[in-house]
């Protein structure tokens, strides 16, 4: 049994314009101490997939089906009070926007201590002491002073570290990091990734890293799931994925990497992502795909095994472009 098992997860949003299918039949697993990258363009459903685990999607308009099991315990049907014991304790989240994800009205120490007092039942004093240790752990200098400061007194990189300190405060089993480095300078990015690596090594935390940046994936992840239009199109260990990408979309993403730029220009994938409102029985990438053939239009390619641990959803998977 894996630490986290997501099976046939589908997420729909009920919007004014109709039903939006954000995630369609995703299945994936996460092992203890593993760093799994969810990658793809914005809107591909990677964040929605991850946020379904602690059910942090807007209630009321979200329809969720499938199964999410943490240590064998089903989370999708867990009553809200029980789920609140999981959030912040077993599953915690580092959000994308460090500038706005911290509450401007409370000290960072309070915001870290809060989660400790909630789950570890620590006293105010003990929680504050622990908050100082956590700030030190995530590499914030002068933590005794910083703990009494407010978010606006901290730089973006520091705020992101505070978010990480909150997320790891209760030594979660699973840490979800939603584009944790996107809003940061390149120099600070590396530092934040080091913090994640360190956490995994020290606490054995499994990490779901949501990113559109394949550079980050190559840098830190063990395994990657590439998503397109709400579905997983390729899944493989990172080394294997970069050595032998099978899906043309993955290949397109790799060509868009700055290191692969030809003559200083990034290759773009031409065309548009199909509408999330409809779901015809065809390959969703068909219109943008250089390898598209007639069969791509008649049925949807299933996610099938290409090599050991390597899955791809393509009728024409190539070893090489």
């Amino acid at each position: 049994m894996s630490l986290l098992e997501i099976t046939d997860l589908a997420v729909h949003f009920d919007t004014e314009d109709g039903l939006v299918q954000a995630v369609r039949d995703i299945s994936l697993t996460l092992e203890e101490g593993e760093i799994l990258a969810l990658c793809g363009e914005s809107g591909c459903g990677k964040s929605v997939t991850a946020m379904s685990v602690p059910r942090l999607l807007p209630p009321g308009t979200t329809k969720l089906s499938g199964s999410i099991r943490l240590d064998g315990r089903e989370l999708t049907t867990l009553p809200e009070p029980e789920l609140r014991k999981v959030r912040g304790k077993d599953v915690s989240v580092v959000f994308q926007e460090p500038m706005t994800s911290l509450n401007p009205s409370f000290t960072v120490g309070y915001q870290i201590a809060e989660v400790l007092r909630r789950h570890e039942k620590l006293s105010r004093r003990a929680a504050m002491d622990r908050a100082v240790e956590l700030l030190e752990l995530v590499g914030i200098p002068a933590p005794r002073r910083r703990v009494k400061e407010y978010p606006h007194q901290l730089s973006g990189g520091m705020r992101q570290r505070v978010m990480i300190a909150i997320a790891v405060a209760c030594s979660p089993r699973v840490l979800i990091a939603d584009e944790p480095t996107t809003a940061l300078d390149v120099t600070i990015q590396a530092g934040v990734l080091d913090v994640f690596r360190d956490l995994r090594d020290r606490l054995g935390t499994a990490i779901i890293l949501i990113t559109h940046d394949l550079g980050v994936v190559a840098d830190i992840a063990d395994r990657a799931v590439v998503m397109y239009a709400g579905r997983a199109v390729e899944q493989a260990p990172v080394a294997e994925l970069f050595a032998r990408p099978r899906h043309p979309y993955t290949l397109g993403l790799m060509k868009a990497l700055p290191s692969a730029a030809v003559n200083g220009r990034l290759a773009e994938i031409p065309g548009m992502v199909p509408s999330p409102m409809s779901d015809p029985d065809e390959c969703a990438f068909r219109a943008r795909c250089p390898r598209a053939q007639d069969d791509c239009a008649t049925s949807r390619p299933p996610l099938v095994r290409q090599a050991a641990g390597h899955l791809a959803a393509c009728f024409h998977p190539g070893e090489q472009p």
Partner: protein
Amino acid sequence: MVWFILRRCGSAVIVLFVASVLIFLGVRALPGDPAVVMAGEEASPAVVEAIRHEFGLDKPLPAQYVDYVAQTLSGNLGRSTQDQIPVADILAERLPVTLELSALAMLVAIVVGVGSGIVASVRRGKLADYVATGFGLAGLSVPHFWLGLLGILLFAVTLRWLPASGYVPFTEDPGQNLQRMLLPALVLGTGFAAILMRQTRSAMLGALSADYVRTARSKGLAEAKVVGAHALRNSLTTVVTVLGLQLGALISGAVVTEQIFVIPGFGKLTVDAVLTRNYPVIQAVVLVTVIGYVVVNLLVDIAYAYLNPRIRLSGGGHG
């Protein structure tokens, strides 16, 4: 924070100065020669001249202004032309009545307005939201004085539960005092409750969709804590700002409410003074209102600064 407060105090002093000049000039602009008025219509020019000299009315305007400020600061606000009672004494008697009414009304407004605003935002799109929003619109559209009339019509004339009007000082009979203040306070408080409800609701809706609220939820905090601590704390600055902005309306509303319920407060004094052209009283009433307005605004600014760490911890202002 210290700088912020000092700056606010500085501008408060400037406002008071400008207001005092305006009041001073306003009184000079009134029709009629005050010396003639004081001396009486049939007094001889010599008497008028003597009075003019006695009260310093023959001095140039700036000198007269200095006199006026000096007199005011020493607590001498002149005498009421109606009954020759010192204006300062009248104010000392009337002001507490209005303060009690305003405080009670504010209490009603904060409890009802902020409370229903929070509920409406949390239950957005549900029945409770529609009820609260409807109440907010109605409260905004109904003038105080009509609400007061309806209250009297219902509770005093028809149901005979409460006395229609009148006032019993708190020190004489607290029970009677509160019983008689209940309806006026409700009437005065309703309009503000409506405004506070609308502002609280929209501030809370903003806060509830903020990233930091999502963070709070991700920590596994109870919904009461998420709403009551994280969202509300950030909405309070809006609420405090609105309270400050509504202060003028509160003063205006108190004047009207006292008139309807025949409460011998500051507001009734104001209206009566205008209707009887009791200029010393008008002058003092306007001045005291301005002072009260400036002081409370200063308090609101300080509360705002306290609630907002960005201002509390720096020398800068907001906006």
